[in-house]
């Protein structure tokens, strides 16, 4: 069973692009987070990126830093995120990518992480600070190839290196739209088009684009060139603005529907 592959095939039939939704697990708290995520998956999120909070998120802007800090204050750990994954999997077939910095996985144990994440129903993992040069120490301990290792390509990545990264990738490629941390503004869709084209020349895998995408108009513009559009900080900002709002889940769900509509060609 390969949920990621099936999902992209299915969307192709429907002439849609994938809406990839990132949220930090356990923000604002574990139970609201679970309800919200399940609702998101049932109303338009095609791939879930479940963020494992880390104390020192050096690739993230202030919005995701704060969501990470709130989740940590709630006692969220990698073990608890795996527990949440299991519960989400009971409710939906949406592919789940665990999104992490390397240190929490290293501390949990690479082999144990593979086993537990797979059993819980995760489909892949994206480790933001683990470039191909360092990734073997993690994947060499994996007892199979049940988890896709999602690879990042940045605007600074030269063509030769792109090719090298693509060779070891599976699931899909994550193209970072711009230099900078998550949530920074200044989206340049023509540049994204060029990078996507370059990346397509070296890989058959679907390409999802993320960083700095926040409006349905952004989503439509990126969906025109890529196979999937990643929304992270925009969801987190909305969560932050409605931390104590009892309607948080419906507010987020409504936003998911708006983004999803923009992925239909």
């Amino acid at each position, binding site marked *: 069973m390969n949920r990621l592959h099936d999902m992209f095939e299915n969307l192709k039939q429907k002439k849609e692009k994938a809406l990839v939704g990132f949220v930090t697990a356990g923000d604002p708290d574990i139970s609201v987070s679970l309800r919200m995520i399940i609702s998101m998956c049932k109303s338009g999120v095609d791939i879930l990126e479940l963020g494992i909070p880390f104390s*020192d998120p050096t*690739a993230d802007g202030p919005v995701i830093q704060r969501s990470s800090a709130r989740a940590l204050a709630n006692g969220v750990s990698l073990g608890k995120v795996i527990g949440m994954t299991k519960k989400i999997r009971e409710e939906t077939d949406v592919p789940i990518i665990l999104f992490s910095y390397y240190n929490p996985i290293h501390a949990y144990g690479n082999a144990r992480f593979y086993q537990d994440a797979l059993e819980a129903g995760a489909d892949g993992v994206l480790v933001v*600070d683990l*470039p191909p*040069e360092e990734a073997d120490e993690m994947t060499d301990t994996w007892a199979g190839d049940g988890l896709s290792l999602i690879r990042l390509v*940045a605007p600074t*990545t030269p063509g030769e*290196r792109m090719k090298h990264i693509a060779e070891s990738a599976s699931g899909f490629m994550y193209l970072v739209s711009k230099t900078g*941390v998550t949530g920074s503004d200044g989206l340049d869709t023509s540049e994204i088009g060029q990078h996507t084209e370059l990346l397509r020349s070296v890989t058959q895998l679907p390409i999802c684009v993320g960083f700095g995408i926040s409006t349905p108009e952004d989503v439509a513009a990126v969906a025109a060139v890529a196979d999937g559009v990643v929304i992270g900080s925009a969801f987190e900002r909305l969560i932050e603005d409605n931390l104590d709002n009892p309607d948080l889940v419906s507010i987020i769900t409504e936003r998911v529907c708006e983004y999803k509509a923009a992925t239909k060609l």
Partner: protein
Amino acid sequence: MDKFEAENYPDSNGHFGAYGGRYVAETLMPALLELEKAYYDITPDPAFQDEFHGLLHHYAGRPTPIFHAKRLSAHLQGASIYLKREDLAHTGAHKINNTLGQALLARWMRKKKVIAETGAGQHGVATATVAALFGMECNIFMGTEDIRRQAANVQRMKLLGAEVTPVESGTGTLKDAMNEAMRYWVGAVQDTFYVIGSVAGPHPYPAMVRDFQKVIGEEARGQISEEAGGMPDMLIACVGGGSNAMGLFFPFINDTVEMVGVEAAGKGVETGKHAATLGAGSVGVLHGSKSYVLQDENGQIQEAHSISAGLDYPGVGPEHSLLKDLERVRYVAINDSQALEAFQTLCTLEGIIPALESSHAVAQAMIEARRRPKGDVIVVNLSGRGDKDLGIVNQNPELGS
């Protein structure tokens, strides 16, 4: 004990045994590969080395002297203590050696902007200084707690024309400043050179910073032979990230001399409020390299604590991590009050006001000297001067009055 073969480290991927490497976001990888190439191609160039050593001599005031601390030694009634006077280098600490090297490399790479993180402010001042010297734009990231406790250095950086960006996240200390500098670099990587101040961070920084700092140990070797008539019995240096210690130790690494690295025990290692990363930490990944780190069982980095802002860091250089495992260097920890006592002692017995960071090394030297016979020779790296710490020391009722 396995022999440490210095020339084998780091390997081609920047690993020191199990440590080091490049654990960074893909956006930074091309910049690190470019920097690595520049480090291997440009820094060995005789023209680069001539310019670097010319600046160390004419601008930074090297060689710094080695000084026999006779009154301190007599007071301890044991081994002879010699101080390697990095406090006398321009800007008041060893940090200038590395910033001159990196700024020169930045110039050879045609980068016009530099950024840096700083804890105690010494690396920030040293970076602002070379940026002024080379006419480069300079932005220094500093935690708000450190800005408060190291106010004099903030003023110096501003005078030198640098922008100081306050970092409020976390505890507002060195770790948070480094997080923010890395975030800024991700967005500005195409035209900005990141001047890392310690033997930490992703490859090639740990090796490069060590190489720019090893002038300390190279000078000390010659000086101590002349002054004391042979090799020293022991070297002592404080370790936060560990650049002054690597600088002193590295040229002696294949000798039989005993080496001691001194971490900050803060309020005491047993209280949990300390910065003894090698003494009480475990292996993890922080700021782009694998090393010992202070972390909880879930891999979340913990806060460090030390009276000395420069040692207040929950990570440590990868090469120190390897040297610990190989037992080539012994790592110990000195607490806040021991450091303050050593600070006071050096002031009154030798007329030298040491930085609180360096005071940790002096405190350990006082312990070691008492245990050793009079003929033994201990070299202590007096990595910086203490003017910046007067505010902290004055707040301490038992001292300075």
